[in-house]
């Protein structure tokens, strides 16, 4: 086979049994990566199984393009049932582990069961070994990787692991590889911890066969040249996202605090991220074979070294009313070393700060630490206490709702979550497609979607982006933040677009968001590598199948239309300032957008459940029979 290496690996940690099955029967309908991963979890998960039960399968999915020479081919999709939502989890990480797993011989790895004592898995050239991890238990993610490389006597072994947060089943614990590449959201670290599994180490001497190597090489030389001249590449490869932060706050696109308000003058005028990069950046780094280096590798004397990308730059600044970049960096390193999702961590701290600000809690509720906005001790201690499950941190480790509930009913009312997760930190009152995408999204945080970023791009050149919107998303209004019109179709198209790179095992920042704004280039590479001749519409049709499959998994878990919503704050509390002063979501128009979304999708408007007709059209009759007939 070209592209795929041909095998799905299944490891049962309870019995120690290791089996494989061929990838090939699935690829025509699900491709690989995220798409095939959703089919695998549908088949391997028994409804009713608790997320922390040994039966919850933890699935790593590489795609046919993972590990190829094309830019951005280092991605891995991770799924299980999430301990945060009991819905299908979805996380995705980059760096160098995925390619190595394919070179070791596997397209997908399914882990079930629970080891009797702490272990790690060692996979090399088709062989699997379950090794003792007693010495690793309690170690942070940086130490763990080094110790495993030493244990195996090979510094080039790639490791994905959990930190103390995952071991202690912090519900939003994540997976970490290298110094900051994370399968961040939906609590995959906690699922791994519940299996007594500390890490998975991979090393392979194999490769990915390419059907049309000369064509691929020729294309790559052109693509690399194109990328080098692209303004997004120039910016990301030198600065990461650091320089765009002030702009995002100025556009009122990034919320300040716990979605409290926007346009905090201090952060617009005094955001010191770029200066921090100038002073402490060793270099920019990226994932496997990627010329685009979007990760900042910072080396701050006394604080430590490592990479960061996107979210901490806002989560640990505006999200917690903090302007001290040393605190941002300490918080980032801490969450990465302890192995917890920085987005949920910063949101959890943000919640405490708002409760304190509103007088709903006092320092007594938080072990004597005053949760003042921007308070350094509040930020750093909370992170440590969550990972160590100490005091109030133990409550937060169970989730924002559990913690709030323990304070008071008033506190519980303040929690802003979507499907059990902190929503992506975008301002949904002013940006309607972003709001819709978030509400109907597959995990409570599907962003960034192209339809959402289009609403940001619009500020730079409204007329231009309205034309783009008309061509790509069906209407000019799709690009205008305040418009409700045209948004449902734009969200649907974007949802299908994002599933293409996710299923191919490549980076969606490159193939769908920042460098290439559609999936044509991804399709070209898919054909070069696999030798197939699929057009864009076939890839997008596969995405639609995957989207419906994901939805049906969650419907089987009990998801309905009512869950596709946003916190009431966004409907009741207008923005008090900034360029979108007064903006708020209109409940009726919002529900109308959802109606239109379901109708365009071929889903039942009342329940939000895909119709049998749609499922059969997509070749999912077996799923319709099993799920729809048992509702």
């Amino acid at each position, binding site marked *: 086979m070209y592209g795929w290496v041909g095998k799905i690996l299944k490891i049962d940690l309870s019995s120690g049994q290791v089996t494989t099955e061929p990838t090939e029967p699935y690829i025509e309908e699900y491709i690989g990566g995220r798409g095939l991963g959703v089919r695998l979890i549908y088949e391997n998960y028994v409804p009713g199984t608790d997320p922390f039960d040994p039966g919850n399968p933890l699935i790593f999915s590489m795609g046919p393009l993972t590990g190829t020479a094309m830019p951005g081919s280092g991605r891995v999709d991770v799924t299980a049932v999430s301990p945060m939502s009991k819905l299908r989890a979805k996380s995705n990480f980059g760096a*160098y582990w995925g390619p190595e797993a394919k*070179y070791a011989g596997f397209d997908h790895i399914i882990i079930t069961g629970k080891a009797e004592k702490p272990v790690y898995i060692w996979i090399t050239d088709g062989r699997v070994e379950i090794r003792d991890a007693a010495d690793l238990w309690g170690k942070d993610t940086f130490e763990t990787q080094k110790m495993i490389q030493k244990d195996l006597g090979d*510094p080039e072994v790639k490791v994905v692991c959990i930190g103390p947060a995952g071991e202690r089943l912090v519900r939003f614990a994540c997976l970490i590889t290298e110094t900051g590449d994370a399968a961040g959201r939906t609590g995959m670290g906690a699922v791994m911890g519940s299996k007594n599994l500390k890490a998975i180490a991979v090393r392979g001497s194999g*490769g990915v066969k390419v059907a049309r190597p000369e064509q691929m090489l020729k294309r790559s030389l052109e693509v690399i040249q194109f990328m080098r001249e692209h303004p997004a590449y120039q910016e990301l490869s030198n600065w990461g996202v650091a320089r765009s932060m002030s702009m995002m706050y100025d556009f009122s696109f990034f919320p300040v605090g716990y979605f409290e308000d926007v346009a905090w003058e201090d952060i617009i005028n005094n955001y010191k991220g770029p200066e921090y990069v100038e002073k402490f950046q*060793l270099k920019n*780094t990226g994932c496997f074979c*990627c*010329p685009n*280096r979007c990760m900042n590798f910072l080396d701050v004397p006394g604080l430590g070294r490592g990479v960061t990308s996107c979210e901490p730059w806002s989560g640990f600044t505006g999200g917690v009313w903090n302007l001290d970049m040393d605190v941002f960096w300490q918080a980032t390193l801490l969450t990465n070393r302890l192995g917890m999702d920085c987005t949920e961590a910063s949101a959890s701290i943000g919640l405490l700060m708002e409760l304190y600000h509103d007088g709903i809690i006092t320092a007594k509720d938080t072990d004597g630490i005053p949760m003042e906005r921007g308070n350094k001790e509040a930020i750093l201690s909370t992170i440590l206490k969550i990972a160590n499950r100490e005091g109030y941190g133990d409550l937060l480790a169970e989730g924002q709702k559990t913690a709030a509930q323990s304070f008071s009913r008033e506190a519980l009312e303040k929690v802003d979550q979507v499907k059990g997760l902190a929503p992506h930190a975008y301002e949904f009152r002013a940006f309607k497609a972003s709001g819709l995408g978030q509400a109907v999204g597959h995990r409570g945080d599907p962003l960034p979607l192209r339809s959402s970023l289009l609403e940001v791009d619009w500020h730079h050149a409204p007329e231009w982006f309205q034309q783009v919107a008309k061509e790509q998303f069906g209407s000019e209004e799709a690009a205008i933040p305040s418009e409700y019109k045209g948004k449902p179709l734009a969200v649907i198209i974007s949802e299908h677009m994002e599933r293409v790179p996710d299923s191919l095992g490549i980076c969606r920042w490159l193939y769908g968001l920042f460098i290439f704004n559609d999936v044509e280039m991804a399709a070209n590479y898919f054909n070069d590598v696999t030798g197939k001749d699929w057009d864009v519409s076939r890839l997008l049709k596969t995405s639609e199948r995957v989207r419906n499959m994901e939805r049906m998994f969650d419907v089987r878990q009990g998801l309905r239309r009512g869950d596709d919503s946003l916190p009431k704050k966004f409907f009741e509390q207008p923005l008090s300032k900034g360029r979108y002063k007064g903006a708020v979501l209109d409940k009726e128009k919002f529900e109308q957008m959802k109606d239109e979304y379901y109708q365009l999708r071929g889903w039942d408007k009342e329940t939000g459940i895909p119709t049998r007709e749609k499922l059969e059209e997509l070749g999912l009759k077996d799923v319709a029979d099993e799920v729809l007939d048992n509702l």
Partner: protein
Amino acid sequence: MKTLIIDAEKCSGCRSCETYCSLKHYGVCAPSKGRIHVVKWEQEGTFVPINCMRCEEPACEIVCPKHATYRNYATNAMAVDTKSCIGCLSCVFACPFGATFVDGDTGKVLKCDLCDGDPTCVKVCPTGALTFEEVSKEAHLKLLANANRIPSLVKKAIGEE
């Protein structure tokens, strides 16, 4: 004569060089078949590409019992005649830089052939860590760059700065 010059400080560790090398030579994406290799200390942010140095007195050529390693005077690259190579790995261990690699499938030696004078790795390197330049010109530029530093170092040494 041009040669491949490595500036490790610029390397981001992306491994494009290794992977495109295997794609170019074997039509497969397999860094293990690359004739260049990046040694990585990912927690330090230090990455060092290792490639044949095309020595004036190549240990690999001297130790080869079958005379399978020889210089291609058209490119100055060291070449390996895979038909003669018996896979004894003498050259691998004799190389002072560890820049001679082994093809795990055939057991024979992999050596950078500079893609016949148009190295693919240089074209795909995103940071300029790999360049293909005239040796004499680059050596001269290096000399000038070093010389440039001397006045300020002198001032520093005598405490004027």
